[in-house]
């Protein structure tokens, strides 16, 4: 149960952290950016599923959020291959890996 709470909190923090990051970098909150809005929705949905949903829902939403983040990052990496882009992409991959670890732990807890 603790793992699912942690997973839910972490998924909920992700859009918040992204907002702060953009706010510090550009001085403007990213609330009108469509890719960011989708990003926030999928991660919030994953957080909700982790907190209240079944394992089936959790799996769908977690992998939707991870997939969306990776696809957006990789598509930007293809159009502009520079250090900043590579760094963001690596960060996202590691972050998504952490989320998937938490998910697997939650999953094994359910099985146990």
């Amino acid at each position, binding site marked *: 149960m603790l793992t699912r709470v942690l997973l839910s909190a972490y998924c909920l923090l992700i859009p918040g952290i992204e907002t702060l990051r953009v706010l510090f970098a550009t001085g403007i909150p990213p609330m009108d950016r469509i890719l*960011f809005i989708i990003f926030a929705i999928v*991660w919030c949905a994953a957080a909700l599923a982790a907190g209240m949903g079944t394992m089936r829902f959790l799996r769908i939403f977690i992998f939707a959020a991870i997939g969306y983040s990776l696809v*957006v990052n990789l598509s930007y990496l293809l159009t502009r291959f520079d250090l*900043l882009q590579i760094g*963001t992409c690596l960060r996202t991959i590691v972050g998504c890996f952490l989320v998937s670890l938490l998910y697997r732990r939650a999953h094994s807890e359910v099985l146990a």
Partner: protein
Amino acid sequence: MTVKLKLQALALAIFGLALAPGLPMSYYASYGRPLPASAQRLSNQAPDARFAAWSLFDSEFFRRNIAPSEQERLRSMMAGLASMDPQRLREQILSSNLRPSKIANASGDFPGQVYSADFMQRYKIRSENGTVKASEPVRAIMASKQSGQEQAVDPYALTEYESDSIQLVAAMQAAASQNDPLARQAQAWQLAEMDRLLADSELLEIMEQYFPVPGFTRGMKVADLAHLEQETIRADLATISDEELSVRLDGVAFQIYNLSDILGKYAGPADIEGTPFEVFPVLPSSAIEGMLHDSIQTRVLLIDQLRVRGLL
């Protein structure tokens, strides 16, 4: 929970927060950072600099150094401003651009009275809206500086290309009240401001990073930049296409028109003493004359090239 476990949890939390998934920063890049102070100062001058900007848009180095999509965007923006009705545009200029703190008279009033007939008469300021002809003093300056073959060319015998372009600009300026004396004096002041901005290292850094001008070195003045541009326009005249030649001629025609118009309505330091214009540091008329003469030389070369090609 042991201390070691707590530390591990803390490290994991920090690690997790630092490596949270996100979107690429370049996606947000168009937001841009807030403008640096010097760019803010420049943008504060924007509305009444718009016709100077039009000239810039038609200049050779602008076309060569700015991406076509950006050129298009800037042109549409300026067209939007130009489409405002004259009264609204004038109000905008008076309210937002001329920085009353700098040009207010001793009692703090905004010097709207500079437009009075008395003022116009007192300073012999020409305000023939939409006319192309320069003032007699300017024509005299140019006549005295012409020599040899150049004497055969009347700077105001316009080609078809130039005529169309100048009529367009003159009509726009007349529509936007840009042909009035304050606007022209403000242009002379803007040139002086540009001289000052060219000593602003923060702005130069931005310029060097985003709008590198080949041949530009720090320490150059506006007149040097203008000369640099003329040299760029004069380059490769024999090999460029007819269309390119006409575009360059248009650009130079704008420059001659604008510079001679500034000079024609230019009031030197002695003339503006005791008037609200006194607080404007303007570029010396000799510098503007030099720039005008430089543009005329370029025009002579362009006209020669048109003749060589049988286009004139």
